[in-house]
């Protein structure tokens, strides 16, 4: 990668403590203003510290691997954790839901990661973890949030529009037709945050990954190009994941004979 005439400044433990000092000031602020957020702030700050240092060592270890199946396993683990996280966030957690989410995220992020690493960047070797892992993390994380929105929305839409859906069924509609407005609403809900962030990126916010690349010495022009590709990857993955997920999820409300399943509404 093209480097500036720039040498990266390391951060030592003492520097981290100075950073922590900022949090302590916020804790004081919270106490002064009676926000009652002191406990959460301290726990949050400590979790940030521990979780990130831990993942730092994990990543260091993974980046040192020259072993494609361990690297792919790590990505699979990310998808599994994402699927469980989305499931936990739902009011109605069915047994098959984590699998549906897993399928949807794998399909959406898988294709966009393949295109980015194998066709655009053409990384060598094909599993080069320095590229593969951060890209996968970005795409899977965003798809996870989209999946959460998609499931929440399809469930609430179908419940709210039950009588309308039945009226369509009685007219001779398939269950897919009868629920199509619900599926559209769910897909839109899942995609709109991504579209909004494409609208304002660089104006209102500098994406974390781009900022990180610049801080570590990459030319802003290169960092920006990476960011563009990442935004497109995310948009693709979010769209495909939410399409697959809503299509799989709506089925649980209907029999094969286009009848509503009463139990699914309880």
């Amino acid at each position: 990668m093209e480097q500036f005439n720039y040498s990266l400044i390391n951060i030592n433990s003492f520097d981290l403590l100075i950073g922590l000092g900022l949090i302590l000031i916020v804790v004081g602020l919270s106490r002064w203003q009676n926000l009652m957020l002191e406990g959460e702030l301290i726990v949050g700050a400590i979790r940030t510290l521990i979780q990130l240092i831990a993942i730092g060592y994990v990543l260091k270890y993974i980046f040192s691997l020259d072993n494609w199946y361990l690297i792919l396993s790590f990505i699979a683990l990310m998808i599994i954790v994402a699927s469980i996280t989305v499931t936990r966030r739902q009011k109605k957690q069915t047994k098959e839901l984590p699998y549906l989410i897993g399928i949807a995220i794998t399909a959406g992020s898988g294709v966009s990661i393949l295109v980015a690493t194998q066709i655009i960047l053409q990384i060598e070797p094909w599993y080069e973890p320095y590229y593969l892992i951060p890209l996968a993390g970005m795409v899977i994380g965003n798809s996870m949030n989209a999946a959460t929105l998609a499931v929440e929305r399809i469930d609430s839409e179908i419940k709210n529009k039950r009588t309308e859906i039945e009226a369509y069924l009685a007219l001779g509609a398939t269950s897919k037709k009868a629920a199509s407005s619900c599926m559209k609403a769910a897909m839109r809900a899942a995609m709109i945050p991504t579209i909004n962030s494409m609208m304002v990126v660089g104006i209102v916010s500098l994406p974390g990954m781009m900022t990180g690349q610049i801080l570590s010495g990459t030319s802003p022009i290169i960092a920006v190009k990476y960011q563009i590709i990442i935004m497109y990857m995310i948009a693709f993955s979010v769209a495909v994941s939410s399409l697959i997920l809503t299509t799989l999820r709506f089925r649980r409300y209907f029999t094969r004979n286009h009848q509503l399943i009463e139990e699914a509404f309880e």
Partner: protein
Amino acid sequence: MKITKIELINICKVKNERTILKNVNLKIIGGKRYIFFGPSGSGKTTLLRLINRMDDPTSGEILIDGHNITELPILNLRKKIGLVFQIPVIFNGTVKDNLMAPYDIGAINSPPNDAELKHVLKLSGLNNNFLIRKASELSIGEKQRVNIARMLLNKPDVLLLDEPTSALDNSSATRLLESIMELSKVNGLTIIMVTHQLEYARLLGGQIIDIQDGAIINEQL
């Protein structure tokens, strides 16, 4: 081919461990009028919903012209046996938008032209001015008629009407019943109408099927 006979044989329906229908046996003859008559909670809606397969019975079978209902293509069955719900369901938009629904969902192949729209409105007792009205602003009785008109676009043989008069005052109920009569007499539709008001049952004429506690207790002419 027009539906000429519907047979319900030993129908039972259990929901959430509650027996709602017990051993219902009934024969419906094409072109005639029937009234499901009985108190609230007796199982009239539950029974009606089995006839167009919104639900399936827990046991027993339904034969349409001798064929088991489960073996018939369901989307076509629901077009042939049109169910109009107890509480009318209105989709977004104008009355015309509502009447386009059967086409929009693919139940009918070509969009109905203005003449057809006016025809079904007239059959349901509404005039042409309603086409451009916003459907959500209609009275309940008018919504009920829009629901019937929408169902008629599917050209059903059988119309299942779940208490179409429940929200109407006496005179609008009478007018609606007259429209339904006409559908039966002029267009030869089989009518099965739910009501718990004897006067309306009498007004429609036809066979009264007395339902109590999920069982048919008596059929009278």
